[in-house]
Every structure is written in C-alpha cells, then in structure tokens.
C-alpha cells in the first residue's frame, strides 16, 4: 500500500495485470525502453521482456490495427497513443474494426483490447497536445470509453478495462497525472465499468463531470457549502455505455443539473447527458440544465489555455444560476 499519482496507478495496474495474465501485452511509441513519454509504462519491459512490451514504429493506424489483429488471436493488447491528438489516424481501425469485430463475426472473433491515451489541456504542451475529443468515441457503438479521475479509479478501472472482453478506450487526464496522490492498494481489485461514481452526496444540485475537472468540481461543491448549497458530485467515469440510471436518480432527487467538461460544448458528451435528463428526468427538473464547458473552438496554445479551461468560478456561477430559478 503506497501513495501514488494517477500515472503511477496506471503503471501499477499494467504491471499487475501483465503478471496475472500473460496474454496482456503493452505496445506503442516509446513505451518500452523509454517507459512512455509520461512514464506510464516504465519498468514493464525490464520486467516482462521485449516480447510483451513493444516499441512500435511511428504509425497510429498501424498501432490501432495491429492491436486488433493481436486481439483476434486472444491476446489482450494495451496500446498507447502518445497523446489523444494523435489518435485520429487510428480512427478507421477503431471505428470500423475494433468496435465491430465481435458484431461482424457474430462473436466468433473479438477485440479484448485497451487503447490508452493521455488527454486534455493545461500542461503547456505544443498545439495538438491538448485534445479532449472523447465525444467522438463515445458515439461509437461497441466501444467503451472510460476516464479515470483519481489514482484509485485509474487503477481499478484500468484493470477492468484490460479484463473486459470488448474494446475500451481509456483516456487519462494528463493534467492530473501527478497533481494528486492517493493510497492505492495493489490488490488486483477492479472497479466496475458502465457505472458512474457518486463522489459526494447532496440535495440541491447535481454536478456531473469526469476526468481532470472532477477536482475543480469537487472544489466548487465544497465552496458552495458556504453559500448553503448542497451539491451532489458525480464522476461519470464510463462515457459510453452511459450509466443513465445513476444520473437520472440523482437529478430526480436534486431537480437541478450542471454538467462540466473540458471539451468544446457543441456535441460534447455533456450534450448526451443533458438530452438524457431532458427526456427522462423532465418532470423533476426545476431549472434548465446548464453546461460548463470549453468554448466551441480549438484549444488555444498555452498563453491562452487558461481562458479556455472551465474553472471553479465558472462552476459556481452556473450553480448560482440554476439555483436562482
């Protein structure tokens, strides 16, 4: 039992599952000798050998597609895209094959694989390194999209993702890779997929979020207590398939919802959540559903990225709005 960061928890889960199950292989650009540009795979090559920890050539369609071929053979590849901004070349393989192999072959072949990618902005990286386009993937039937927001959930959800018999896109909020530590017991216990996590109970409003912004949202909830507002905070965690149940129950109780995400607003995953609530919690809603999100533009380079990112004040402001009604 140790205090670890989120990226260390990823590393723990990978090592644990590679030790548990020798069909698990790790692959990607710079994952072996270098241990990954964020050190998520450090030590794995030394421990499990070069046959199970594979440095690939620089080609994302290839990485996505090679993992598929391996998976049809019963391996469980965990393939890394170095940054989410470089996943798009792999899109055809992910959408047209990984997410469909089971369906296309009526269960004869399947893709028990995990695609990992660090995502989100705020780390002073160059352009194309700050993407939050989880919505593109959450719309793909057959693909699970999972986002951890703490070291414990990173550990438990990654184990679940690797063990899942179907493909999972595992998006790691790199802004909080090292921002917080938590005690993680390396006991091989997975957390459930397809489930939201209620991080804080409350009566007046439901704050719904995922990834790095869970921190800001919890902070906002704490600050709102001072104003006499009791906010429930839900970490969605699995963006698809969505645990609508938990979200609907909470909003039915509180009557108000604020959805927080870093991706640009239009067509973000927040839209699906709002639409679900507008359809299924309608009669209990006491105020409009408000989204606190990035702007509908490209994430600016770093001099202006703070102006793009939603912050604690924006969340509080939105809650004040919906509470006023």
């Amino acid at each position, binding site marked *: 039992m140790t205090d670890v960061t989120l990226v260390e928890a990823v590393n723990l889960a990978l090592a644990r599952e590679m030790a548990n199950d020798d069909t698990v292989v790790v692959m990607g650009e710079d994952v072996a000798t270098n241990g990954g540009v964020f050190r998520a795979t450090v030590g794995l090559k030394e421990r499990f050998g070069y046959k199970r920890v*594979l440095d690939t050539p620089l*080609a994302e369609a290839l990485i996505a597609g090679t993992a598929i*071929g391996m998976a049809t*053979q019963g391996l469980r590849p965990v393939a890394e895209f170095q940054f989410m901004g470089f996943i798009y070349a792999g899109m055809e393989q992910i959408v047209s094959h990984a997410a469909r192999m089971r*369906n296309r*072959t009526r*269960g004869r072949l399947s893709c028990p694989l995990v695609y990992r990618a660090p995502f989100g902005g705020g780390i002073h990286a160059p352009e194309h390194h700050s993407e939050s386009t989880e919505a593109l993937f959450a719309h793909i039937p*057959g693909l699970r999209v999972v986002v951890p927001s703490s070291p414990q959930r990173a550990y438990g959800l990654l184990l679940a993702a690797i063990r899942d018999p179907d493909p999972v896109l595992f998006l790691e909020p790199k802004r909080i890779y090292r921002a917080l530590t938590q005690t993680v017991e390396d006991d091989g216990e997975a957390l459930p997929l397809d489930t939201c996590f209620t991080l804080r109970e409350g009566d007046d409003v439901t704050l719904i979020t995922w990834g790095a912004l869970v921190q800001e949202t919890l902070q906002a909830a704490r600050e709102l207590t001072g104003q006499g507002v009791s906010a429930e905070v839900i970490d969605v965690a699995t963006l698809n398939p969505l645990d609508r149940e938990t979200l609907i129950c909470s909003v039915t109780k509180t009557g108000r919802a604020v959805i927080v995400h870093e991706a640009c607003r239009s067509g973000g995953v927040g839209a699906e959540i709002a639409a679900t609530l507008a359809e299924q919690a309608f009669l209990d809603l006491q105020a409009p559903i408000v989204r606190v999100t990035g702007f509908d533009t490209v994430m600016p380079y770093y001099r202006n990225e703070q102006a793009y990112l939603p912050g604690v004040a924006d969340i509080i402001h939105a809650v004040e709005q919906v509470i006023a009604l």
Partner: protein
Amino acid sequence: MKDRYDFTVSSRGFLDDQGHPLNDLPALASDTERVLSAYRNMVLSRTLDNKTIALQRTGHCGTYPSVLGHEVIGTAIGQCLDPTDVLVPYYRDQAAQILRGVSLTEMLLYWGGDERGSAFEHCAEDLPVAVPIATQCCHAVGVASAFRIRNQHRVVACSVGDGATSKGDFLESLNLAGAWQLPVVFIIQNNQWAISTPRRLQSGSETMAQKAIGAGLPAVIVDGNDYFAISDALTRAITRARAGKGASVIEALTYRLGDHTTADDSTRYRDAEELKAAWAREGVKRTQSYLHQAGLWSATREQRLQADCKSRVDSAVAAYLKTPPEPPTAMIDSLFATLPPALQAQREQLARTQEKSGGDL
C-alpha cells in the same frame, strides 16, 4: 553510408498463355492430385460467382464483387496455407476461402446481407472480409505478431488489390512486418483496376511488388494466372516466413474480368479490346489446357465437374435462401460480450418492434 544500394524484384513464370510449360515445372507439379483439386476449386469458385451475380440481378443478394480473374490466385493461397495458418482475405478471395473451410452458404449469407456469413464454422481464426480497403493489412501483422510473441510457427497470408497499395495501412503494415520480421506474406492481386482507376494512375511505380523495398522486404512478381508460378512463389514465401526469416510480398498479375461489383458498369471506363485480350490469358481455362496437355483431363471429367459444382452451389443457394433473417434483437445482442444495462431498454424496444411487424422484417 555506401556509394550505392541496389534492390531487385524478380519474376519467374512456368506456363505460357495457353498453359504450355515454359520451363521445368516446380516440384509441386508432380503432385497431380493437388493440381487436379486446384482446378476443381477454380471451377467451383467460378460457378458460385456466376450464381451469386445472378442472385443479385434477381434481387436475392446485395451488391457483390465478382471473383472472375482471381480464381487461380485464391486457389493457390488456399492450397499453400496450413489449416493452422490464418488467412486475412480481401473481397475477391472466395477461391481461397472455400479451401479454408468457409462454406458456400456462409459466403452467400455475407453478400446477401447477413452477419452470420462471417461466423465461419470451420476456420475459426480466419478474418472476415475487410471492406475498408487495406485495413486488413494491420490485422495481418497483428495476428503475425501474436504468433511471434507465442513462438508459434504459423503464417499469415494477407491479400490486397492493386488499389490498396496506395493506402497507408498497407504501407505501414509492410514496414512493421519488416521491422519485426513477422511471419506474414502479402499478396497483391493486381487486376489492373481499382473500380475505374487504372493501374497507371494508382502509382508511378513500375511494379507494385517494389513497394516492398521501402519496408526492407523481398518481393517477387508473378503471373497470377499461372498456377505454378503463383503456387511456387507462395510456397517459398510461406516456407521462409514459417522458418522465422520474415515477411515477403508477392505481386500476382491478373485482370478483373468482371465489373467492379454488380453496382458497376465497366464499359464506361474500359476498353473492350483490353478485356478481350485478358480473357485470352485467363487462368482457369489455362489450367484446364495444362491438364489436357498433361493427359490429366478430359471432356467427360469436365462435364462431371461442372455438374458437381452446379449441384454444390445449388444446394448452398437453397440453404441460403431458406435461412430466415436473424431477429432484429441480434443487432444489439452481438455488440458486446454481455449486454450493458444501458442497452437493455433499446433491446426491449427492438423486441417489441419485432413482435409487431411479425414476418414483415
């Protein structure tokens, strides 16, 4: 750095256009049963092909890509692979798939719009046909990687068309196969056309085979209608791969004798003369001529074979036509290993629709 680096693509042929041996035939030619069963498979594949086109014309099948002109290559692939190898086919590989164990009915179901056509009862590890061009190449190197990781002496054969050689997936996969010395053989079935795009517009390269050079892979070019040439090249490449010596590329020259698919009309863009010339060189007839010359064939045998193929195809068609469509709920049930709670409601909705519409669907 050296002053110069030299690379070669070589070629070896055995039969002329009429099926006369040009050179000493490779050893496999002495296995007459093999050659005879190759020919039988070519005819079976062609019979199925004609029938499928007819089914499409009469509304009993979806858009379908004919295999005409690819029967020899496919047959050679099917024969050269071991059962434990894996075939990563493209959509003109029916002749190979038959030999792998895909049933004629499965093939009809697939093109007839039924997912169960890729459930392959008899070759559990072969990949289904990949419609998005060249994407299967990445799967092929993935399968081959699994073999390497597990130290298995198994080989992957992966087919693509000439058009597919332009797409990144093909080129990236070749590169990985070279970098990782994977047990995979890429077969470029160069039929001179990618729908309406002629070979010359597809690439400025003199051959397609030379695309292997950039990946550090050896390549050969063969006449894909010369059964011995393609079989010989495949045997060498597969033996090499199985021995752990790495991947290679075979360019098999042929000609797409039919339209691109049943939705295409190739008279819009290609010359009748060119097509006629290609028919004169095609491989099924050529193989038959060879067998005749070798004293292995007769008109009676041909008649019997045709009748046999027809009856096999007819019963496959009958089985296909009487297979009822899956229940619509299958579209949800097949997506994940276990139904996520989120999809339960939609599944129920589908089940209700199904009840309501009855036989209508």
